């Protein structure tokens, strides 16, 4: 079966010049939640940022659904291969504006902000009681992570690269968010690559990868 996403070869070093990994190619299958595990500082975030084209990556081939993307087309790639960033950053506006701003970009194309679906997803992650006009800067770390998950799921990217999306969430909420990511991944034409540190939750994934000792291996 042809993978939905294929990206590589990827190599990276840390700030001190230590090699993190070399010649790694990431393949993600359709309708599949892949979990990426590995020791801290091993380059998992860098790998996701390289796939998204946010970290330097030379001579890399990026394929989605058999089509190649690169150069000036990378913004289009990012809108389909969406990165859920580790620190769940926000723009200094309201909660609603934080959900809506991507729809003002050219990359939105035919996408329209669905307020009904947004309300439903906010309810599901436990943010249903939050006022939408509240400044997003007043949200806690866990609330920001959940808001980021809702924004990403509303966007419906073909592939979602989630970098520790459950950090700062308590057990039941982390579990519900993980379920939502898995539901997204298992839809036809979609996939999710998720960095997790919780091995128990990781066992609920369809596939597990480990980035350790400069290599990416299937567990």
């Amino acid at each position, binding site marked *: 079966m042809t993978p939905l996403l294929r990206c590589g070869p990827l190599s990276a070093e840390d700030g001190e010049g230590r090699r993190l990994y070399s010649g790694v190619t990431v393949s993600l299958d359709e309708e599949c939640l892949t979990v990426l595990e590995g020791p801290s500082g091993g380059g998992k975030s860098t790998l996701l940022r390289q796939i*998204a*084209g*946010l*970290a*330097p990556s030379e001579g890399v081939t990026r394929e989605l659904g058999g089509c190649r993307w*690169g*150069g*000036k*087309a*990378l*913004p*289009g*790639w*990012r*809108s*389909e291969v*969406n*990165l859920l*960033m580790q*620190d769940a*950053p*926000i*723009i*200094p506006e309201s909660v609603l504006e934080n959900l809506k*701003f*991507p729809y003002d*970009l*050219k*990359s*939105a194309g035919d996408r329209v902000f669905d307020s009904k679906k947004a309300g439903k997803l906010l309810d599901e992650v436990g943010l249903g009681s939050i006022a939408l006009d509240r400044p997003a800067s007043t949200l806690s770390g866990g609330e920001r992570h959940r808001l980021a998950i809702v924004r990403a799921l509303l*966007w419906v990217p073909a592939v979602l690269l989630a970098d520790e999306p459950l950090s700062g969430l308590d057990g039941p909420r982390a579990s519900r968010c993980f379920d939502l990511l898995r539901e997204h991944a298992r839809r036809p034409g979609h996939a999710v690559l998720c960095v997790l540190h919780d091995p128990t939750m990781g066992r609920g994934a369809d596939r597990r990868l480990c980035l350790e000792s400069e290599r990416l291996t299937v567990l």
Partner: protein
Amino acid sequence: MTDLIQLTPVDLLVATVLVLAAGVVSLAMRLDIEKRLALSAVRTVVQLGLVGLILERVFALRRPIVVLAILAVMILFAGREASNRSTRAYRGMRWDSLLAMGATCLVVGAVVTQVVVGVQPWYDPQYVIPLLGMILGNSLNGVSLCLERLLEYLSARRHEVELRLVFGATRSEALREPIRAAVRTGMIPVTNIMAAAGIVALPGMMTGQILAGAPPMQAVAYQIVIMFTLAAANAMGSMLIATAAARRLVAADGRLKIEQLR
């Protein structure tokens, strides 16, 4: 201009007493700035003295090539100074600030000297050098503030910029807000000066002209021209430096090249 009071070297010596008084205050209050004050005072005398000597020669020569050479030196120094003032740096910053200062000085300077004032001949040093000097001096402030703000934004609010990028923002979409914030900051000094002109203090050039015996309304007319010129110069300089810097720090494919920022 016949009733102009001429300043003699003795008058300048008397004025030195004033700066000495400032030094005495520093010593009495242990401000520890007396050495800096003395050095600055000496630099003022030497630098302005040299400028005066050079200008007298240039005014007497009235040769276009000499005027252009002086302008080139002024632009070089202004470009260097604009990049030196920034606490952060990236490769090519000096070229960018030189380009911003040079283009602003030449375009806005050409409009004000050739179209508005209508200097005859076009290179008349008495008009061209002080006018372009004012443009450079003021846009230097705007350009350096704008550059500092942009680099600070891209560094401190990097994740906010990347948040737009991960949803497929193009380079220009991702840079819209940082550039807007930077240009706004670059424009603050000139808008402040324009708003307070004549209320808080008489602007320097107008004061100078009045002291030199020009009719107040004529000094006002010149000052208005200068203010509007400075507004245009600040806007253009800020926009140029912000765009040039932003394009160096964000690749065409939208990647924020933060590693280039030191």
